[in-house]
């Protein structure tokens, strides 16, 4: 009996939390994903890296069920996200938190009310308890003192930390970070890196970090996927990627300006372009 119990538990903790299979997605004429396969392990930080414009945010929206793929499936704990009814999807989303690139705080609510928002709409907690939870979450991101401010009075880094507090207000099991480091000064980058790591360790969250800030992301990720051209180009632990032989991977991971991903936008030969007078407008 105990064997069964432990087997079940092992089975549960080992199976990936989110599985993406054969994902195809096109926006207009442009193919964004052509068969992406991902397995997001439970309780770990998984990073998804890729140059800008590869649709990393789109991938998060597909996982969150806001966009519907042309083909393929996204399953979260065995539930097919895109086969759920609208109601079931909203119920599933209560178990997810998402940190948006811009923070996406509700501009007409104060910091306190922003963090309290998910609690107010999804729980019937008394006001005193909501206050305690909100202050706890704000304390975790170090902004308890800023609770009366409006979002317009916050700096970019602070806004993102408030958004993080809001994303964890309902103690989600899965948290999606969309470019958490972009446009931040080094100090707030460091703060965010630490926060993400600490939250993950303390709460046992499953986290997906989408980013192109390689250094910061690799420093906290347990597993990394590199996406390019609509496919998974490489995956592995941060250390294994660092020594990857593939020139495209190494160009991206080490940030070299020219390589398989060209520096120049496709154009005809430079000299003939300069000398060719007739084509001038």
């Amino acid at each position, binding site marked *: 009996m105990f064997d069964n119990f432990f087997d079940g538990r092992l089975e549960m903790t080992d199976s990936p939390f989110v599985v993406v299979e054969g994902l195809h997605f096109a926006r207009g004429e442009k193919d964004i994903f052509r068969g992406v396969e991902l397995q997001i392990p439970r309780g770990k930080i998984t990073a998804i890296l890729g140059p800008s414009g590869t649709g990393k945010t789109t991938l998060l929206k597909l996982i969150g069920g806001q966009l519907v793929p042309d083909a393929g499936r996204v399953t979260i704990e065995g539930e097919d996200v895109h086969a759920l009814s609208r109601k079931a999807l909203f119920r599933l989303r209560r178990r997810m938190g998402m940190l948006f690139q*811009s923070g996406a705080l509700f501009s007409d609510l104060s910091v306190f009310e922003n963090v309290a928002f998910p609690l107010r709409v999804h729980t019937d907690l008394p006001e005193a308890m909501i206050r305690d939870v909100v202050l706890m979450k704000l304390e975790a991101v170090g902004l308890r003192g800023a609770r009366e401010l409006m979002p317009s009075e916050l700096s970019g880094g602070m806004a993102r930390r408030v958004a993080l507090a809001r994303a964890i207000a309902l103690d989600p099991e899965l948290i999606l970070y969309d470019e958490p480091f972009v446009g931040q000064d080094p100090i707030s980058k460091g703060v965010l890196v630490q926060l993400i790591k600490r939250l993950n360790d303390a709460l046992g969250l499953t986290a997906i970090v989408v980013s192109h800030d390689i250094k910061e992301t690799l420093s906290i990720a347990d597993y990394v996927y590199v996406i390019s051209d609509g496919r998974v180009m490489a995956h592995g632990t941060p250390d294994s990627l660092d020594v990857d032989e593939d020139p495209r991977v190494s160009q991206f991971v080490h940030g070299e300006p020219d390589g398989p991903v060209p520096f120049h936008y496709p154009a005809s030969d430079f000299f003939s372009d300069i000398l060719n007078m007739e084509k001038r407008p």
Partner: protein
Amino acid sequence: MIGRIVILGRRGCEVLEALGRAGQFLAQSAVGVPSREGWYLWLRQVHFVGVLSLAIVLVSGLFIGMVLALQGYTLLVDFGAEQALGQMVALSLLRELSPVVAALLFAGRAGSALTAEIGLMKATEQLTSMEMIGVDPLRRIVAPRLWAGFVALPVLTIGFSVVGIYGGYLVGVEWLGVFEGSYWSNMQSSVDFIGDVGNGMVKSLVFALVVTWIAVFQGYDLVPTSEGISRATTRTVVYSSLAVLGLDFVLTALMFGGFS
């Protein structure tokens, strides 16, 4: 030539598609379940689109009433019928000018603001994040605004009429010297509450629905960039003005055109 027809066909399909999206959008957001929270959100929007538009609507109403009296007087006095001034002012305000002008002002003052506000929420991912929190933005953001507009515009239209009739009184009676008794009694004998005030209100309700619908849909459906927001705001004003004027003709034909 064939290329042009293809483009025309594609445009037509796009328009139909947008209409379909807008209809679906209206159906989904109009059925918001009223709750205590929802009631308060609605109240806030009534304040925003109604109370804050009151000043511009009332001032415009006053001036329009005054101009109507001035123009009407110079016309009527030639026929010795200046005592019919009250009737003329009241009927033109109640049947046409109040619903139409109030709706146009409303589209410019409140409609464009609604579009820009919702568009900015979309551009800053507030709508997406609300969805991710598990709250339907159609109910939380769009429905209160839709219903607030639906209630606020008819009230503004009433205000417009009242102030306009008073403006006509100021110019006609106080300034041009039309006998006060005939200003009011001619008005009272010719204005029918159901036929004139009521039909004007029906027009106003229709315009309110259409203008707010266009405004919130344009905000919700726009391309989330600064250019997209400015374009959508312009579209809100243009589309709602055209819709109001076009519908006004249709409604007038139905109500006063003798097709009944």
